[in-house]
């Protein structure tokens, strides 16, 4: 790393200030506020608050509905991460065969990445719209009366499909560039050493993709846990009823629909801890097992 010396010692801090201010105002302050609120019972009508210690956490963790949501979130995360990673990998492998070295084609594929996530999510939800969704139509013609927002399974199904669908391009681009960074000569050496292409993939290409794969796994878990808020919201339209939702969405529902600010703060603190653990895990893994070459 190159060291740059500023003649004015204050200048670098001044340059950092806007970014630090944004982090402080939009991330640190709300986080601190959430931690604080999680120890209080907030009056639903805004008339003060009472300190209740760990009561909010105890309530949350013993609540059967919270457990149900947590279970669903776990299943949802596993499904979304698994399918979006594996489908993207499959597509990337196919694309890699076609475009090795064809730079312009690769740039074209990058465009998928440029579609804004909310737009993609909205498109996905429209495809499953109760009345005008072509995929709902398709399901019906196959004899499946798909009722999003009514049947919990159907709702969960559409959430997973949409979340997977939206995440595939991101994974695809990373996998593709990962595949393209596997040296050609290593692939060729493998072609001489091993006859079966499938075996070659699992013994040479796939292990070399491990760093990319691991990075994407973390990204996808984070995505499924947190970034799918918009999709869940679009599917359940703010009124979950008995539909399955994710933990992050429950924070919102309990806090802003149920006006239980203390409880929902406790939930968000739990999620913060989860993110923290995930980050620690990621760094540990990078240090230990995954070989970045």
């Amino acid at each position, binding site marked *: 790393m190159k060291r740059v010396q500023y003649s004015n010692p204050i200048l670098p801090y001044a340059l950092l200030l806007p970014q630090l201010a944004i982090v402080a105002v939009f991330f640190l302050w709300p986080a601190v506020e959430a931690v604080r609120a999680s120890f209080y019972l907030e009056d639903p009508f805004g008339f003060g608050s009472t300190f209740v210690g760990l009561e909010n956490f105890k309530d949350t963790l013993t609540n059967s509905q919270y457990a149900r949501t947590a279970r669903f979130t776990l299943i949802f995360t596993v499904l979304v991460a698994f399918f979006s990673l594996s489908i993207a990998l499959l597509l990337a492998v196919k694309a890699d065969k076609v475009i090795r070295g064809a730079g312009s084609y690769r740039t074209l594929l990058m465009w998928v990445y440029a579609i804004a996530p909310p737009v993609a999510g909205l498109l996905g939800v429209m495809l499953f719209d109760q009345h005008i969704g072509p995929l709902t139509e398709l399901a019906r013609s196959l004899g499946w009366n798909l009722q999003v927002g009514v049947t919990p399974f159907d709702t969960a199904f559409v959430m997973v499909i949409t979340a997977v669908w939206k995440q595939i391009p991101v994974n695809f681009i990373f996998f593709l560039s990962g595949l393209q960074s596997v*040296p050609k*000569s290593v692939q060729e*050496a*493998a072609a*001489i*050493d*091993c006859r079966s292409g499938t075996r070659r993939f699992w013994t040479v290409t796939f292990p*070399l993709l491990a760093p990319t794969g691991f990075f994407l796994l973390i990204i996808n878990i984070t995505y499924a846990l947190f970034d799918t808020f918009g999709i869940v919201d679009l599917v359940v339209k703010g009124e979950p009823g008995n539909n399955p939702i994710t933990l992050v969405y429950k924070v919102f529902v309990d806090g802003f629909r149920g006006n239980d600010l203390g409880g929902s703060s406790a939930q968000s603190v739990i999620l913060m801890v989860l993110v923290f653990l995930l980050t620690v895990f990621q760094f540990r893994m990078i240090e230990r097992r995954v*070989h970045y*070459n």
Partner: protein
Amino acid sequence: MASITLNTVRKIYAGNVEAVKGISIDIEDGEFIVLVGPSGCGKSTLLRMVAGLEDISSGEILIGDRLVNKVEPADRDIAMVFQNYALYPHMSVYNNLAYGLKNRGIAKSEIDQRVRKAAEILEIGEYLDRKPRQLSGGQRQRVAMGRAIVREPSAFLFDEPLSNLDAKLRVQMRMEIKKLQRDLKTTSIYVTHDQLEAMTLADRLVVLNKGQVEQIGSPMEVYEKPASTFVASFIGSPAMNLIPMKKTALGWEPEQGDGVNFDIRSDASEFIVGLRPEDLEILGDGAPLGAGLAAKVVVTGVEPVGAESYIHGTLGEGGQEVILRAAGKQHYDIGQVLSIAAKQEKIHLFNRQTGKREEEISALQPA
């Protein structure tokens, strides 16, 4: 072990780039063939077609007496050593060597035995548990060699395997490869653009130029009787002096410069005269001129390389440049005029138009 036969092999890349233009070579069982030529002449392409890594546009490649045009690389019974070694970064050295054997369903005990034997030959036994990134360039090179020899294939293919090593290691590995090949007697095709490497390794050299064979022959044949000006300038260092000369009313004169005393009976009116730097003798003052070629050279520069010096000069003031080889101890001044001479049998003649060697050189005689 097997012979390899190339029969008018051609490679046309997308975009109509003809990288290999109909090459035929018969490689004998156990022979060490070196493909040599400048960058972009199609050496790698040709080798990769033998390996099966590149489709053959037309022609035939036979390994042993099996036509392999459509055979998968893994089924050709060849092993290849790549320029950047192409080791599997995630596997230990042991597994790098064992991988090709495992995939061929060879018994574990046999694999172990072969890997350990190869490791012993190449002196990499103590690194078997390491990953490639924990090895030096030279050690990686040995692992790459090891991966080839454990397979006990019918042919080794080398694509500039030494070009990433430093000069000293390169010389050492060169000798080891030669020795290894002599012991194993495995047919080998070795690609390099380094003419010295080519000369020292080859049983037979194949000099390539722009996708075509310029000459095939033993290193000494190629050195002593280069088939064209291309080969003459490519093989040998410093390169052969190539002097265009034409017949004038006054006799044979160099195109640029003067002071050359040379005569032959020939119907041709022009030639390119080839003179190796070491064949040009620097004469003492007043020494008699023998049969052959004599010239006056004005010294323009001296490159001492230790045991010898390369003397750069021109034929007369401002004439064609030539290089001579002289003993290192001798001192020469810039601007000094030297009398030089070459014996008749050391003079190479090339056709001015085609650049091909003139075979009647044996009939060369002073007029």
